[in-house]
């Protein structure tokens, strides 16, 4: 860029330029939901949400300003650092509620598995970029190994939800990189048949005493609760039962903002975090839920558009993967609170309370913006 005289207007334009108006508009709608619902569900957290979203938007803006090349150059150090931190967590991490997920670095506690949600697709995109033109089975095996290491480290914490999300993020890159359908289809079929079997034989599998080899007891519990929430109506099933009551009782138009009885009489658990969608569905009804679905859908469409028009292999893979991460969060969260997926700790993207997740997701939006801008720049 040429040297220019100081001008506030120019500065503002320069500041705004990296921001994709469509993505930012959709993000604004989602954050609007977040503030509105927080005011209803947990008003005392509004100030804190304001700080979180400020930090998250700043992170988005920073990522958007960086060129995709700069972002990709961070891939290897981020990935390596993340893996080292995960090992550190497994060795000296803090244990809370039976899971070791946090690392106390003096100032604050960090959750290295969150870093991996961004580092993982970056790393794989960078790796495939390095091997562009030579992507064979060997590359997929290496990519699979790069993916397996952090996923395994997170799984032993144990944190099934995050490990699945990281695995998904990595898988999307591999998928977009062209992993053969001959591999994907059989695995997907095995998965579908497996889930079918669990649902079909749920009664037998969920008998106490039946050991599920691979999974821990609480994980078995979650799956079984999904199959039959009434089995444990005051324990895990309570969440799902109360959440479906909240959604169902909302009807078409909802009970009105701050009028949700399930929310305000504390029947909804974790109503400001993972179960915030139930608040939305109770107070704004089917209409509010469909507007949210539409917003997410537009976000996905914009993401896919950016991916399809991205200037390089790495940016394509990265944009496609990030978009699919948004989809995964949204689908898993809404599927779980409405009772069609098991309860795993996945937040509703951009809306659930929780600083780390919001920052991570906004970083993703920023990366999409960066890729979109690089396409525009590359064209011009």
């Amino acid at each position, binding site marked *: 860029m040429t040297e220019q005289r100081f001008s506030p207007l120019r500065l503002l334009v320069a500041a705004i330029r990296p921001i994709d108006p469509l993505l930012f508009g959709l993000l604004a709608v989602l954050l609007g939901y977040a503030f509105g619902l927080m005011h209803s569900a947990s008003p005392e957290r509004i100030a804190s949400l304001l700080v979180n979203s400020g930090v998250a938007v700043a992170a988005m803006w920073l990522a958007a300003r960086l060129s995709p090349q700069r972002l990709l150059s961070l891939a290897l150090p981020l990935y390596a650092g993340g893996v080292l931190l995960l090992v550190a967590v497994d060795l000296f991490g803090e244990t809370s509620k039976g899971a070791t997920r946090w690392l106390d670095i003096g100032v604050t506690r960090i959750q290295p598995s969150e870093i991996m949600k961004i580092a993982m697709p970056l790393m794989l995109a960078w790796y495939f970029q390095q091997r562009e033109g030579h992507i064979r089975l060997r590359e997929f095996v290496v990519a699979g190994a790069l993916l397996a290491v952090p996923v395994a480290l997170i799984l032993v914490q144990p944190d099934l939800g995050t490990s699945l999300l990281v695995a998904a993020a990595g898988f999307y890159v591999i998928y*977009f990189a062209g992993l053969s359908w001959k591999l994907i289809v059989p695995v997907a079929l095995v998965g579908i048949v497996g889930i079918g079997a669990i649902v079909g034989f749920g009664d037998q599998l969920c008998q106490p005493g039946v050991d599920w080899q691979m999974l821990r007891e609480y994980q078995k519990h979650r799956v079984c609760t999904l199959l039959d929430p009434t089995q444990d109506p005051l324990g895990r099933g309570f969440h799902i039962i109360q959440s479906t009551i909240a959604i169902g009782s909302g009807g078409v138009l909802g009970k009105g903002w701050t009028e949700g009885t*399930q929310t305000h*009489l504390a029947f909804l658990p974790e109503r400001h975090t993972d179960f915030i969608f139930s608040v939305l569905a109770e107070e704004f009804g089917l209409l509010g839920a469909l507007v949210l679905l539409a917003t997410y859908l537009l976000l996905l469409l914009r993401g896919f558009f950016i991916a399809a028009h991205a200037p390089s292999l790495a940016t394509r893979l990265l944009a496609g993967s990030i978009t699919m991460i948004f989809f995964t969060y949204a689908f898993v969260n809404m599927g779980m609170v*409405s009772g069609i997926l098991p309860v795993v700790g996945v937040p509703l993207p951009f809306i659930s309370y929780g600083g780390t997740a919001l920052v991570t997701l906004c970083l993703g939006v920023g990366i999409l913006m960066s890729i979109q801008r690089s396409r525009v720049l590359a064209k011009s």
Partner: protein
Amino acid sequence: MTEFRTPEEELGRFRRRVLVAGIVALVCFGLLAARFYYLQVVRHEYFHTRAEDNRIGLVPIVPTRGAILDRNGVTLARNFAAYTLEITPSQVADLDETIDALSEIVTIDARDRRRFRKLLEESRNFESVPIRTRLDDAEVARFVARRYRFPGVEVQARLFRDYPHGEVASHVIGYIGRINLRDQERIEERGDTANYRGSDHIGKSGLELSYEAELHGVTGVEQVEVNAGGRAVRVISRTPAATGSDLELTLDIELQKVAEAAFGDRRGALVAIDPRTGGVLALASKPTFDPNLFVDGISTADWNELNDSPDHPLLNRAIFSAYPPGSTFKPFMALAALTTGKRSANQAIADPGYFSFAGHRFMDDKVGGHGTVDLHKSIVVSCNTYYYQLANDLGIEGIAGFMAPLGFGARTGIDIPGEAEGVLPSPAWKRGRFKKPEQQRWYGGETISVGIGQGYNAYTPVQLANALATIVNGGKVFRPHVVRHVIDTASGERRAIQPEPIRQLAIKPAHLAAVRDAMVDVNKSGTGARAFAGAPYSAGGKTGTAQVYSLKGSKYVAGRVRERLRDHSWFIAYAPAENPTIALAVLVENGGFGAQSAAPIARQVIDYHLLGARLDAPAREDAGAAEAEDDSHAGHDEATP
């Protein structure tokens, strides 16, 4: 596996994969939309109801139990508020641990723990169960400061039943206790479940039981919004409870005290009735018990003491125990003689001191007999021979036929639960009573014994008192009642318990007068004369002695047992003779002759009733009769200056 492609081919493949991903996302979102539609449109009604059920809780408002007052407005049963420490078992992880921790703050002794365990078995898990009742202010303060440590434990202000007169009239008033499973079943049978939601206590005996419906009141209901923890957040609507009605009795608690005190340590019963209305003035059963012991759930020690006592303090002798009436039966026999025409008032017999029947001699008390005995004299001197003959002439069917309308051998219908029927012997009764044919046959000799109130005859004191009331009020048979008014506490409306007689007996006034005159002379010159010496009023009476069966063949053992083999002492009386306002029957178990122990009690009660003269000392027995006379004189002098 992937062959080399041009960048254009690569981009094309990537875009196809994006399309596939987009389709997957769209399908999944469609699935979610379908799910939302199913929950929010198709099943909206169901979930709406579920949410409302979540939201609204019904909290019963327990009504205050009505009070019980005597005829002069003296309180006999009332409520007072006290703090209780209560545990909701379902909200407590470890009961024993919680109780141990609580016992460091408030006193919880072994008895409290035992009672808690017992109540726990009877209660449902979500109900709160008291561990300690009647906490003092310091204990409440100590607990409240530490309540955060005790989820599921609460201090509640509750109303307790209190019987300020303690043991006095406890057989009449009865007591309340916690609702147990059997009560619960009865409540369900009555269809009263809703009204007892939230109620802990129910009448267990006496008026507390028989007037339960009036005393309990109507449970109110509060619709509250509850949160997930079941805690009420906001009241939506409120239907207040209706306080139970008060009972105003015909009973005079002061008269009752006089009666009970007059018994001293002796066992027995007294029933005093206003013959004009059938209202019970006093109803005593000795020994008695303290109903306050039952209110919180009686301790095992107290219960065993009451239940195992050979004196059976829980037994209401006045209405449940049936004894042979002895000579108190004679005035009724005399009336039967006149009414049936078997005797006239001036018809006399010669009493040789015995009556021969089928080769057996039925002996008179007086050796050599009373000489010439007419109806009047037969009552005054209590001549057995007269009644042996009369019984033989009337026959057992004749006796039973006359006595049944007077209420002998049938429940009077008094408004206290637990009344016994007694036995009015007849051939029909005997056939029903015994199994073997030879036992079922009625023997003529048995009729002779019945004539003097012995044999199979067995009546409760209330039957005897009510029969006496009937012959002094001109033949009106009332249903004796202890409650005079049921008072609606909200409106103040007083519903009278009807004093209408059940039936009017067709007995000629002249016949009644003949019998009554004789009874007045019993107290002037006959067997009751000593007990009624110096009375400033004239009273009718009749002594009686009921043989204790077990005497035959039993060995005389020292002490108590020996005392228990003595005859029961009866006395029936009414006063004033001209216009009777009280008719009573007194029984003293193992009290010997009627004149000996029962008559002095009757005298004290009538004295208090007519003169307001109350004697604190128990009535003395025969040995001190002269002194007793002096005492009662002194009493009159003070009361009637």
